[in-house]
C-alpha cells in the first residue's frame, strides 16, 4: 500500500470514529427531557405553538408541571397521559395513532395509495384507439378536401 492510500484509510477511520463518538447513546439530562416533552405538547392559549416555545404564563406553568413530573421520576408516557387527561388528545402536537386523531396520519397515506392505484391503472391500460371511419365519411371528407383545394387554385391564379 502506498503512503497516500494509507493516509486515506487513516482519514476515513478517523471520520468513522468521530461519527461513532458523536452518535453514541448518552443519558438525557432532566432539562433536556423537559425541553423534549414540552416541545411535543401544545400551548393551550396559543395558535400552533408548543409549550416549550410559547412565552405565555400558561405555558410557563405547564413547563413547571412537566419539570416537577420529571423530577418525580415519571415516564414520558405518564406525563403525556396526564396532559391528555386534562385536555384530550388535542394537547399532543403529534396526534396518537390509536385514536380517531390517527386519521391525520392515515388519510394522507390512503390518498397517496389511491393516487398510485389510479396512476398504475392508467399506465397499464391499453392506448385508446379511434374507431375506423365509415367509407361514406371518408368519401365525403376527400370530396371536401378536393373542393377546397380547387378553390385555393382559383384564388391563387393571377
Amino acid at each position, binding site marked *: 500500500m502506498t503512503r497516500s492510500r494509507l493516509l486515506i484509510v487513516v482519514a476515513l477511520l478517523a471520520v468513522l470514529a468521530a461519527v461513532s463518538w458523536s452518535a453514541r447513546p448518552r443519558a438525557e439530562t432532566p432539562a433536556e427531557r423537559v425541553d423534549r416533552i414540552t416541545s411535543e405538547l401544545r400551548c393551550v392559549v396559543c395558535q400552533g405553538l408548543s409549550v416549550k416555545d410559547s412565552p405565555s404564563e400558561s405555558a410557563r406553568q405547564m413547563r413547571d408541571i412537566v419539570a416537577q413530573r420529571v423530577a418525580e421520576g415519571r415516564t414520558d408516557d405518564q406525563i403525556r397521559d396526564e396532559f*391528555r*387527561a386534562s385536555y384530550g388528545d388535542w394537547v399532543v402536537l403529534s396526534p396518537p395513532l390509536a385514536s380517531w386523531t390517527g386519521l391525520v396520519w392515515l388519510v394522507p397515506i390512503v390518498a397517496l395509495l389511491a393516487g398510485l392505484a389510479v396512476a398504475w*391503472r392508467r399506465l397499464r391500460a391499453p392506448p385508446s384507439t379511434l374507431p375506423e371511419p365509415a367509407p361514406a365519411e371518408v368519401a365525403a371528407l376527400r370530396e371536401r378536401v378536393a373542393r377546397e383545394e380547387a378553390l385555393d387554385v382559383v384564388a391563387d391564379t393571377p
Partner: protein
Amino acid sequence: MPRWLRLTIVVAIAALVMVLVLAFRRAPTDIRTGTVGKPSVAMNVTRLEGGDLTFGGRTDKVVVVNFFASWCVPCKEENPALVRVYERYRASDVVFVGVLYQDSPENGLKYIHDNGVTWPTGIDTDGRIAFSYGVFGIPETYFIGADGVIAGRHIGPIDETTLVNGIESLRAKAQK
C-alpha cells in the same frame, strides 16, 4: 372515469361534508374533551380571605366552579349573572367556588369586594388547579354533579340561563 373511482370520490366528499357539519354544529363554549365526564379531584387551596378551601370529589352537592381573574374583562361581564344565580341557590344544595387564575391575591381580593363575590374563592398560585380541570382560558365554568363527576364546562362568559340549566339538570339527576 371508472365507476369505482366515481363512487370513491362521492364517498370522500360525503365524509368531508359530514365531518364539517359535525364540527360546526358544536358550540365553541362547550368543548366535551379532557376532564368532562371524569371524576373531579378533591383539592385543598388557600382562600383569598385567608384559611383553606376544599372542593371537588364526591360531596353529594352540585358544585359550580368558576375560574376568573381581575384582569379578565369577560369575567366582569359574566359576574352579575353569577351573583344572581348564587343568591338564588345559596340556601340550597348548590355550592359555588371561585378560583383566581394567574392573578395576585391583592387584585383578586379587590375584585371580589368590588364585584359582590361572596362565595368561597381560592387562589390557583401555580396553575395546578386549572391544569387538573383542563382550563383553556378564563372565564371558564365547570359543573360538578353530586357524584363528584365533572358533568359539563362552559368556556367564555356564562349567562344566567346556562347557569340555571346546568345546575337544574344536575339537581334532577342527583334526586333520581
